[in-house]
């Protein structure tokens, strides 16, 4: 028989206390795993989206007057009132140099002010398929416009107008069909009418472009590519757009900080559970510790027994905590974002087990030292 056998015997004998420690650590580790898995998955998803989308640049007409924003940047007031436009032949120039400048997508837009129920709204003419590739977070119900008279309606605007897919919409005497309604985004797309470029052109009566969104492949030469673009179109305002990704990153960062804080608090509570439970166990075992000390166990042997008991119980808690945490994250992921992927991560599993064992060792140190410092004579008074 060795010290390990005493540890195992005690764990078997004190099932209630051991289960309490395991439950405490399981909850603590499960919380950490759930929050960590979700934030990691959200970050990965965002990185994937960024990689897929590339770096976005907005070309807008040069103007000193400014009044409205599109895509996260302020655009000249003139754009809204269709006064100044980007010449359409810029597209030919961009297409010709796209490979050289690392341009992935070219998405021209015509922004046109329209009135619905007497209220001013933005109609954005674009190549809708490119637009959806450019903004993969844009989802819709209904279908995509497949003719020049069909549009997609922003979620808030559809609600405001009480319109649904299949309904008609009259703009400037043109009878249009609402092919689909965009899902809520929380950004400007909620209030726009997304129309095929040709329709916007015919409604505005101008062939010029209000904006051109460009997506660059992420490359080390990005800054140089953008500078080349600026040189290529000196009469156009060139701005790098951070927009939704920036705000998403900010949300994830905040969530990450919150998750970290919650994890620390929960793990501290789990540690306190171990401390109090082990202190209680030590008080119950004064007689036994007295016998150990009388027959020649050293203080370090007592510390070894107590800390090892806690470490084993916490290690088991760490195992269950990891499993429970991943399952909880898998359950919670669809509530946060449908495309979050939560998987079993052996590295995280090992880290969580190690963390649980370390919590057990640290939290049981105080009870263990208290047990070891029991005067054998005092302990034997209980005999």
């Amino acid at each position, binding site marked *: *028989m*060795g*010290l390990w*056998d*005493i540890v195992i*015997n*005690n764990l*078997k*004998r004190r099932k209630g206390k051991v289960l309490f420690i395991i439950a405490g650590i399981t909850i603590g580790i499960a919380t950490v795993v759930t929050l960590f898995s979700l934030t990691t998955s959200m970050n990965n998803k965002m990185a994937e989206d960024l990689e897929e989308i590339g770096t976005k640049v907005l070309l807008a007409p040069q103007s000193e007057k400014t009044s409205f924003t599109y895509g996260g940047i302020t655009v000249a007031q003139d754009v809204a009132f269709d006064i100044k436009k980007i010449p359409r032949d810029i597209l030919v120039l961009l297409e010709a140099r796209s490979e050289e400048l690392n341009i992935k997508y070219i998405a021209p837009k015509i922004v046109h002010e329209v009135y619905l129920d007497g209220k001013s709204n933005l109609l954005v003419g674009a190549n809708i398929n490119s637009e959806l590739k450019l903004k993969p977070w844009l989802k819709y119900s209904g279908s995509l416009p497949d003719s020049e008279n069909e549009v997609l309606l922003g979620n808030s605007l559809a609600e405001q107008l009480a319109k649904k897919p299949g309904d008609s919409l009259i703009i400037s005497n043109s009878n249009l069909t609402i092919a689909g309604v965009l899902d809520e985004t929380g950004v400007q797309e909620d209030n726009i009418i997304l129309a095929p470029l040709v329709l916007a052109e015919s409604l505005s009566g101008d062939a010029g472009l209000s904006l051109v969104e460009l997506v660059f492949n992420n490359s080390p030469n990005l800054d140089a590519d953008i500078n080349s673009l600026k040189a290529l179109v000196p009469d156009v305002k060139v701005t790098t757009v951070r927009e939704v990704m920036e705000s998403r990153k900010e949300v994830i960062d905040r969530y990450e900080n919150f998750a970290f804080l919650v994890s620390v608090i929960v793990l501290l509570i789990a540690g306190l559970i171990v401390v109090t439970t082990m202190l209680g166990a030590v008080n119950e075992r004064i*007689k*036994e510790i007295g*016998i*150990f*000390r*009388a*027959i*020649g*166990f*050293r*203080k*370090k*042997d007592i510390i070894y027994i107590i800390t090892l008991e806690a470490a084993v119980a916490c290690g088991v808690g760490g195992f269950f905590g990891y499993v429970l945490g991943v399952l909880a994250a898998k359950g919670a992921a669809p509530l946060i974002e449908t495309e979050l992927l939560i998987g079993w991560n052996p590295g995280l599993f090992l880290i969580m087990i190690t963390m649980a064992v370390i919590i057990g060792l640290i939290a049981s140190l105080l009870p263990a030292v208290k047990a070891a410092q029991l005067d*054998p*004579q005092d302990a*034997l008074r209980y*005999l």
Partner: protein
Amino acid sequence: MTFIAVNNVSKKYEIGSELKALDNVTLKINQGEFIAIMGPSGSGKSTLLSILGVLNPPTEGNLIIDDIDVFKLANEKQADFRREYLGFIFQQFKLLPYLTAVENVMLPLTVAQISKKEKLQMAEKVLAKIGLESKLHRLPHQLSGGEQGRVAIARAIVNQPPIILADEPTGSLDTKTGQEIIEIFKALNEDGHTILMVTHNKENLEHVKRTVLIRDGKIVN
């Protein structure tokens, strides 16, 4: 030759007022002696046993065992000393209830640097010596009082300590079983163990080589 020397040992406790449990006690014990320590309750005999057991340092005086001033040893060395020199038989035997007979006996060997197999063999051998070879895997509550006493003795002698300290080993047993325990002590003493036994039972005195009487913290014989 003196094996254990208790030199002018006093032990005071502060419990409200000062209580002198032992008062300038001097006792010389040779190797192989079988000594009974007797006295009324509160006379200081258990305090003397705890000092002899290197569990309770005296307030004054010293304890020399095998030429070692034991209370001058560092705390951890005192634990090593207890393991090497002393075997304890506590009142009520105090076996660990969750360990079997053989595991209880192996307990003092737990921290010894020998293999598990060797520890088991040593424990089985000692239990066989005291007639418990058929009850190795019984838990304490599955054993009679006498059998528990014998397991406690086996635990005390398994690592072959030269000194055995017993605190009222027959106190909780009937006369016949108590007599069996004393017979085991006699046999161990004949094997060379020095035995110091606190007892109230005068019947035990006929088996010991010397009796030390304590009253009010002083040796009176």
